[in-house]
């Protein structure tokens, strides 16, 4: 869902044999979100030149979509953003006759993404994941003892725990649409509530732990967690797992672990969609079909450590992906995962304002 911040738009020119009149497909995806050998494979199979750009925030993508004329054929917004952009008229309906690989998709995920895009008329699922708790195992145990509630929202929403964790560093996502549902879940309320009353309660819960939070940021926690600069991050599953791998590579003694909170966690979906003004919608269909191929989807997941919405690909997944409950949760955990819907303009303003107040005290 979300990777490094540095590469704002690093263009990858892939084909060495690009002729002037060659067919092109322009893809705009999250940074570090694909196995790059797949790009080469697509070009070899279709003869289409693939121009692959990356972005690092939904807001950035959304601004391009709302402004129009982005020049991209395939983009990858997250579900809630997708829904709003569909309403704004940013995307075109998919030509399902050109997508035979739709048969590979996983109905469990499809049912959930119907919230944002009924019937999958506009998008296909690329990856999905959860928002949960990343910890530096040793430091958290040092602060809270061996029975630290590492798989509970109480770890980050109970001021008693946070007070002890503050000295080793806690970061939260700088995304109210992720953090407010978590706060509501901790309070036992509907995580998808948009009303002022619920938001006020969530605000109180967040403000109670605010003094112990070092920073709200949606990308820095990967490195901070891996380096041992912080001991707790409330963030996205794949990012925390990436931090785990970086720490292991650096062999710096930092042991990172990702836990889905037992009270329930937000499940999110990154969907591939085609802008209404895409220059090459046919090419876009070819790319979507290519991604939905069981082998290709598996290769992508094996590389980025995120689950995909492709049932047929599961037989090709590595054991450390399909077998990791942090990536593919068991049924019981899955039942606890919830989805949220987008905020309308007025509620969004309340949410942003509340978030600013939580963060800055103003």
């Amino acid at each position, binding site marked *: 869902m979300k990777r490094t911040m540095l590469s704002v738009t690093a263009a990858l020119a892939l084909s060495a044999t690009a002729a002037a009149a060659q067919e092109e497909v322009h893809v705009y995806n999250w940074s570090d979100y694909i196995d790059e050998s797949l790009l080469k494979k697509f070009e070899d199979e279709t003869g289409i030149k693939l121009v692959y750009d990356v972005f690092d925030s939904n807001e*950035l993508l959304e601004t391009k979509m*709302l402004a129009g004329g982005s020049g991209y054929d395939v983009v990858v917004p997250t579900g809630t953003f997708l829904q709003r952009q569909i309403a704004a008229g940013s995307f075109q309906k998919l030509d399902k006759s050109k997508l035979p690989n739709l048969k590979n998709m996983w109905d469990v995920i499809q049912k959930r993404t119907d919230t944002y895009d009924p019937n999958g008329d506009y998008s296909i699922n690329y990856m999905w994941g959860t928002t949960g708790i990343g910890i530096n195992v040793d430091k958290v145990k040092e602060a809270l003892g061996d029975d630290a509630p590492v798989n509970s929202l109480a770890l980050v929403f109970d001021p008693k725990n946070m007070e002890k964790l503050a000295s080793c560093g806690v970061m939260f996502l700088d995304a109210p649409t992720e953090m407010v549902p978590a706060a509501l879940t901790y309070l036992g309320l509907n995580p998808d509530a948009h009303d002022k009353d619920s938001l006020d309660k969530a605000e109180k819960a967040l403000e109670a732990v605010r003094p112990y939070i070092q920073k*709200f940021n949606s990308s820095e926690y990967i490195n901070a967690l891996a380096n041992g600069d912080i001991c707790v991050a409330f963030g996205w599953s794949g990012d925390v797992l990436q931090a785990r791998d970086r720490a292991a590579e650096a062999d710096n003694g930092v042991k990172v672990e990702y836990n889905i909170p037992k009270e329930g966690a937000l499940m999110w979906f990154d969907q591939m969609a085609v802008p209404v003004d895409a220059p090459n919608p046919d090419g876009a269909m070819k790319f979507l079909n290519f991604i939905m191929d069981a082998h290709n989807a598996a290769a992508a997941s094996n590389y980025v450590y995120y689950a995909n919405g492709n049932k047929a690909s599961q037989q090709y997944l590595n054991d450390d992906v399909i077998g990791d409950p942090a990536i593919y949760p068991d049924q019981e955990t899955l039942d606890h995962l919830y989805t949220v819907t987008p905020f309308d303009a007025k509620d969004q303003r309340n949410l942003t*304002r509340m978030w*600013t*107040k939580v963060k800055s005290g103003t």
Partner: protein
Amino acid sequence: MLRRLTLILIPYLWLLALFLVPFLIVVKISLSDVALARPPYMPQLDLAAGLSGLKDFFSQLDLENFWFLTSDDLYWKAYLSSLKIAAFSTLITLLVGFPISYAMASARSEWRPTLMMLVILPFWTSFLIRVYSWMGILSQNGLLNSFLLWTGLIHEPLTILNTPTAVYIGIVYTYLPFMILPIYATLEKLDISLLEAAEDLGCSRLTAFWLVTVPLSKPGIIAGCFLVFIPALGEFVIPSLLGGSRTLMIGKVLWEEFFNNRDWPVASAVAVVLLLILIIPIILFQRNEQKNREAGQ
């Protein structure tokens, strides 16, 4: 005659195309209403509808978004906080930059180009990368803390990153050359015999500095302060990367209006007000420059 007219026209066309037209577009958006559409605001100018369409378009514009800015204390607090941060960091930059300029101007002349190069050198690297490096230096396990722990000056790592201190460090570091260069330019021109004359007439080194060097470098100091203050006021990258969430700056508020709330009209209104705030120092700056040019003749 025609040639002269073209020569005069070019800068005005430049100003028109790159400042006035974009500004008018921003003003227009600031008078519109937010909508779930592409682009996300109403009304859109439809030239095909002719004069009545134009009338209709203008009738839909209003100042609602500017009134909205007054309804929430967030905005004036953010403006005020930005002004405070910009003013304070300008002061620090001056305090750091002046001695550097002074040292450069008093260095042997064969050293000066090298020193000048060293001041300009950071510009050869991306600004973003330099700010990122500061994150590495200031973080809990960063270079600075490791060094201080190693020297034994501190026993617990200092929390600098994500505090206002880090924002000040970032702004001062980034804009220091803009302070050094104009001050250096005035100090370099300063006639040493003026200082000798002041000493000869009874000044100590220090009073000669206050009575001669400082007043004579005033144009450079003023230019430097404006060159730091104006961009620092709207600064967004440094507070978001180095500052904690408590560092409230108008640049960040603007970003949130635009990207999080998708409220382009309110974001534009914030930008228009920011520009109005900036126009005052910019005009003062222009006056100062003009005065210097006249005095120089």
